[in-house]
């Protein structure tokens, strides 16, 4: 859970009451399901990125291209959410207009990543596991027993924070009032900082805003690094240059990618002004759930899963999720100012994720892959016993 989604959920509760609270419950119940179904097999495999897991028994190149496209799309949506959160914080603190605040945040982020962050490549590799913040911890602990225990503690802490959003959300509804919250930001994202101001004065507001901003900046920089390294390492070096590229060239490409991602984040961050951050993170989750999850789960659970099935599942999942978001009320009405939306649901996951599963199954059944199936048997030794992954 990022600082931005904490602000977003507290805001949703303050504006929508119990409806906002469903976000807290829904997001937390996702953690144990990851733990039960995919975390342990992945840890035993010793593969930490989505593409690495799939490429283990499927064909490298098509998998890496497809996975990069899915990952970049997810990163972009998550980045927009963080930009909206950070933009609102800066706006509240310095009384800047929202657009100026987003540009300032984007400029700081680009400078931070270009001049400082490029060295932290190990960190990037970890972040590239996608969104799961707990799983990072899960993978850095050497012993499986300790790793499981730390997931248990972490789930407890995160659950506690989600329960806190109940109190902060309802508290700001009463003590700050919905009129002031929506006047500062239509998305309600500033409910928690405003509650801090109402209860602890300007000093407390400053403290909370500073902590939240620092956390958001770290997440934003991490996401930009992850996106830039996906572009430069997975797409440019491995695909465009077929693995033949100097380190200097890769760094140059990564720097250009950082700049492009930063500008994209600023433009889209401004376009999504007034949206709730938790809702935006929900869209990023919808893209990840459609692009990555079906392929990941099927590659672990199903022997007959093939390269073409995985590629089709990732591409269709990504394209459908993004396409449906574009024609949903959020973009079609709020951003593009059309009177009515073509697609009625605000979150596309229920359609796009189901489609990604179906497409993956159909393509896998249409053309069998005996190599991938035989590799599955060998993979099982690692998946269940951790053999060979040490």
């Amino acid at each position, binding site marked *: 859970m990022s600082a931005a989604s904490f602000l977003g959920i507290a805001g949703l509760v303050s504006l929508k009451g119990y409806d906002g609270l469903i976000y807290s419950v829904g997001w937390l119940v996702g953690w144990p399901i990851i733990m039960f179904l995919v975390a342990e097999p992945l840890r035993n495999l010793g593969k930490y990125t989505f593409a690495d897991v799939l490429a283990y028994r499927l064909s490298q190149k098509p998998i890496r291209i497809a996975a990069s496209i899915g990952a970049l799309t997810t990163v972009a949506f998550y980045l927009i959410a963080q930009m909206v959160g950070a933009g609102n914080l800066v706006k509240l603190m310095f009384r800047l207009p929202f657009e100026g605040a987003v540009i300032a945040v984007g400029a700081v982020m680009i400078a931070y990543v270009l001049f400082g962050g490029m060295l932290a490549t190990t960190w990037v590799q970890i972040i590239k596991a996608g969104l799961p913040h707990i799983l990072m911890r899960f993978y850095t602990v050497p012993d499986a027993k300790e790793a499981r225990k730390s997931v248990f503690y972490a789930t407890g802490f995160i659950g506690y924070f989600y329960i806190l959003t109940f109190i902060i959300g309802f508290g700001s509804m009463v003590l700050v009032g919905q009129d002031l919250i929506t006047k500062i930001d239509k998305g309600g994202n500033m409910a928690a900082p405003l509650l801090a101001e109402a209860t602890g004065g300007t000093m407390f507001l400053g403290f909370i805003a500073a902590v939240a901003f620092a956390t958001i900046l770290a997440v934003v920089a991490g996401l930009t690094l992850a996106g830039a390294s996906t572009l430069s390492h997975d797409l440019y070096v491995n695909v465009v240059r077929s693995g033949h590229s100097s380190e200097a060239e890769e760094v140059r490409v990564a720097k250009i990618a950082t700049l492009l991602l930063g500008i994209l984040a600023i433009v889209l961050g401004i376009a999504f002004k007034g949206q709730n951050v938790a809702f935006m993170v929900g869209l990023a989750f919808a893209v990840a759930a459609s692009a990555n999850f079906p392929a990941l789960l099927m590659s672990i659970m199903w022997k007959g899963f093939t390269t073409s099935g995985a590629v089709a599942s990732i591409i269709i999942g990504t394209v459908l999720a993004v396409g449906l978001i574009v024609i949903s009320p959020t973009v079609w009405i709020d951003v593009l100012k059309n009177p009515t939306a073509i697609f009625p649901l605000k979150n596309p996951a229920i359609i796009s994720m189901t489609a990604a599963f179906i497409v993956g199954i159909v393509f896998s059944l249409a053309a069998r892959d005996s190599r991938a199936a035989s590799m599955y048997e060998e993979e099982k030794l690692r998946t269940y016993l951790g*053999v*060979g992954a040490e």
Partner: protein
Amino acid sequence: MVSGGPGRVLDSAEFKELVSKRWTMSLALTLAIFIGYFGFILVLAFDKTLLARKIGEHITIGIPIGIGVIVLAWVLTGIYVWWANGYYDRTVEQRSTMRPGAASRDSRIGLRSPAIT
């Protein structure tokens, strides 16, 4: 690379039993979360008044139930951790055929092949 097909470990009844127990446990816990969470969502969708009933002066019953679903998810994680750290690991350690050392001696599996390590 693996010429002799699946190796001794994969064919053993013990390994198959372990794999099936693992998935039974994982899917049972996933099902428990699904029932708890989707039960909550379905009540919200179809009978809001049930959750809007007041307990005490200000709080509705929906709030402790919402917290309850979060706590349920945490408790189920605890059950999984307890099971995996106890039963699962003990089984892997006890059955000699599944020990990493025993497995790597089985040349047919080819675990020493550089392609994997």
